[in-house]
């Protein structure tokens, strides 16, 4: 991957990585720090491997996920600050219709809460498969697990989320 390609790659995936990290750590500050760190690590990684990487997107998410795990280790889960002002929601693009925005805010808050109650692996699978459109094969690459078991996990994660959504 050349410098120019990398910058394009950043433009495309930086918002998605930020969103993934934000949904996991619930702190805009930590999300920004981890996202930029993920891109720096990704660049060093591909430079060391002389660009011989099959799936750059999977590698980037894997790095981001490892950084989130490291952050969990540093701070206990309870220490992670939940975004009190919903500053991210304040920046959502659709501001044309206030009612529509309020409904959207409400749905996003509910979904965030529901996802945060799932176990880590289910959270990842929901975000990657349903939000970021990862195939089971790509998730298997990130988690280094067999593709068949990931298919089962996708089904179980959605069922678990459905259970949380109605509470």
């Amino acid at each position, binding site marked *: 991957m050349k410098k120019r390609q990398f910058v394009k790659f950043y433009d495309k995936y930086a918002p998605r990585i930020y969103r993934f990290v*934000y*949904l996991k750590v619930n702190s805009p500050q930590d999300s920004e720090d981890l996202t930029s760190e993920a891109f720096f690590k990704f660049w060093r990684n591909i430079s060391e491997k002389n660009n011989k990487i099959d799936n750059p997107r999977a590698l980037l998410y894997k790095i981001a996920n490892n950084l989130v795990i490291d952050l969990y280790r540093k701070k206990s889960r309870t220490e992670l600050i939940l975004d009190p002002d919903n500053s*991210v929601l304040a920046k959502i693009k659709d501001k044309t219709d206030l009612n529509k925005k309020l409904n959207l805010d409400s749905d*996003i808050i509910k979904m965030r809460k529901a996802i945060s109650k799932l176990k880590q692996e289910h959270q990842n699978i929901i975000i990657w498969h349903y939000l970021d459109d990862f195939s089971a094969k790509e998730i298997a690459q990130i988690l280094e697990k067999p593709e068949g078991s990931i298919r089962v996990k996708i089904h179980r994660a959605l069922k678990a989320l459905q259970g949380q*959504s109605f509470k």
Partner: protein
Amino acid sequence: MDNKELIRKIKKLSKIQPSQKWLGLTRYELIAELNSENQSFGMTGFFNWLLQAQSMALVTCLLLIFIGGPWLAVKASQPSLPGDLLYSVKKMNEGVLITVASDYNKAKLQAEFAGSRLEELDKITEDSFSQEEKTDKSKQILNDFKSNLAGISQHVGNFSKEEAVAVAKTAKKLKENLNDTNSVGIENELIEAEKAIAEVNYQILSVLTKGNEEDIEELATSTDEEILIWLEQVGTTTEEEIE
């Protein structure tokens, strides 16, 4: 809520976006980092390049060309004869080996190369050269043979008695081989070569009798008697021939 509705609500999370200001700032920082890496490419970059498979292959090829090539040329030049394309390579290689060797090894190498000259002489006799060519090549070889022997004489003075005896044994073999050589057209060169062997023998005798010139019998007890007798015989015969 059915699965479709649930997935639709999950998709709404895509509205979560980072601030444009932060995105731009991080982009700028990344580009700055990439540029600084390019500038510090220097030696680290060179070593990284060296470790790549392609560059390894290139380095191997260059090593083969610059080390393997000359080695192959030297090997291929061994059976060459005067007038052959690779004969100069053979002579050059001998020159290099003699230059880097110690005094004793210099004499040993000169004796070894003198032996090679005699082998070349045999080959020329057997090959299908014209008589004129055979004579020319033989003359050249015998001149080189004489130079080799002169090289031995030059260093024998610094030898121990054991080393001198070892060289004397080689000289004896050379003399025997020289006697077997076909002498047609090169009679004078052969006499010159024999004189050169006699000179080597004289030098060897000088080393062996150093300190006990008067008592040759005592010397015989400590030295290979057969060699000593031969050294004396060759000296006498050659002197007679010269007279």
